[in-house]
């Protein structure tokens, strides 16, 4: 009979209408600023540079190898290698980025920089409230803006960060063992290896 389908449809919408008052699960809306969804651990948004310890300049893991700059599909990373070297977290003298810019208005959050980085220096952040009135400068992030501590990394991606720290620690242990085997351990190398360990402890 004509109208049966329409009546069935009306019943369905009525069910949803009343259901939305009684079953919270029916209302999918998350009222954003007040309510937030639980953070999904694998989520990614824009890259940041990881540093160990307390000082972002001292502990920056990036050694300006420029692999991510080359591999970045939309070419939003700009790196200028430093002229001099300075000791990294392990105390080994390394180059560091004199300039490290990411234009997040160009970045497409693909995570390829993270995948290709051999030093675990660049990771994906989850912060998405980044609107700014200045669409030029405000979205062109320099290395200070990009630097986030390892603790932050542990906070947003705990499983991944723990794995990274474990791998780094193992590698350093191997290096240290090699160094010990080669010659007597120098006295000044010891304190710097402890930096990631403390970071891990805090996380």
């Amino acid at each position, binding site marked *: 009979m004509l109208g049966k389908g329409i009546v069935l449809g009306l019943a369905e919408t009525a069910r949803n209408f009343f259901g939305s008052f009684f079953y919270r699960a029916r209302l999918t809306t998350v009222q954003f600023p007040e309510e937030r969804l639980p953070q999904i651990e694998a989520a990614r948004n824009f890259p940041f540079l990881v540093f160990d310890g307390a000082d972002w300049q001292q502990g920056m893991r990036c050694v300006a190898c420029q692999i991510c700059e080359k591999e970045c599909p*939309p*070419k*939003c*990373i*700009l790196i200028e290698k430093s002229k001099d070297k300075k000791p990294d977290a392990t105390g080994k003298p390394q180059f560091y980025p004199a300039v490290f*810019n*990411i*234009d997040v*208005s*160009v970045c497409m959050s693909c995570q390829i920089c993270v995948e290709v980085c051999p030093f675990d220096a660049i990771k994906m952040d989850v912060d998405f409230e980044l609107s700014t009135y200045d*669409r*030029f*400068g405000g979205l*062109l992030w320099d290395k200070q803006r990009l630097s986030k501590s390892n603790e932050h990394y542990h906070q947003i991606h705990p499983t991944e960060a723990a794995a990274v720290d474990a791998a780094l620690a193992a590698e350093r242990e191997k290096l240290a063992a090699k160094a010990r085997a080669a010659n007597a351990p120098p006295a000044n190398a010891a304190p710097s290896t402890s930096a990631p360990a403390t970071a891990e402890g805090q996380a």
Partner: protein
Amino acid sequence: MSPERSANMDVEMVRAALAAAVPGCQVEIIANSRPAAQHSLLVDAEHAVAIAEFLRDDAALRLDYCSNVTGIDWPMKDGGGYLEAVYHLYSMEKKHGPLVLRLRTLDRVAAVHLPSLAPVWRSAELQEREIFDLFGIQFDGHPDLRRLLMWEGFAGHPMRRDYVEPDDYEYEPTAHETVLQKAQQHQREAER
């Protein structure tokens, strides 16, 4: 390699069939050494339509479905070279394929004409228009040969390998290095 249910066509057999069915046609096998082993048939432009009709209508082949049509630009160092149109054919009826057909133009400048296969396979219509638009191959016999993606009056064919992007955009300060350089240059010019 993932298991393949539909086997590639036996190009030798197809060539033999073509030689018998379309007298005077020149068909050359272009071998493909890659694991997928999708060898292709280079056919002459003159007999292309007859060949295409045979491939579509032959009871054993029935390549009734032209999946993909695309162009390739092969410039030479000396300024010569040619443009190529590639057709990937399948059969919806027999469920086999692909058979790869290639057509080449004589050069890249003036003799860029190829016969259109859109009357044989309608699915080539928009794709040939795209090739005309982006590569500049003139398809004779195409029902509606206009630019597809670029606008009317656009100069040049962007997918050619020697295409130079016109430097007429508004640049913004960005970390994108080449863009940044251009932007700075533009800014300097503007200040001057």
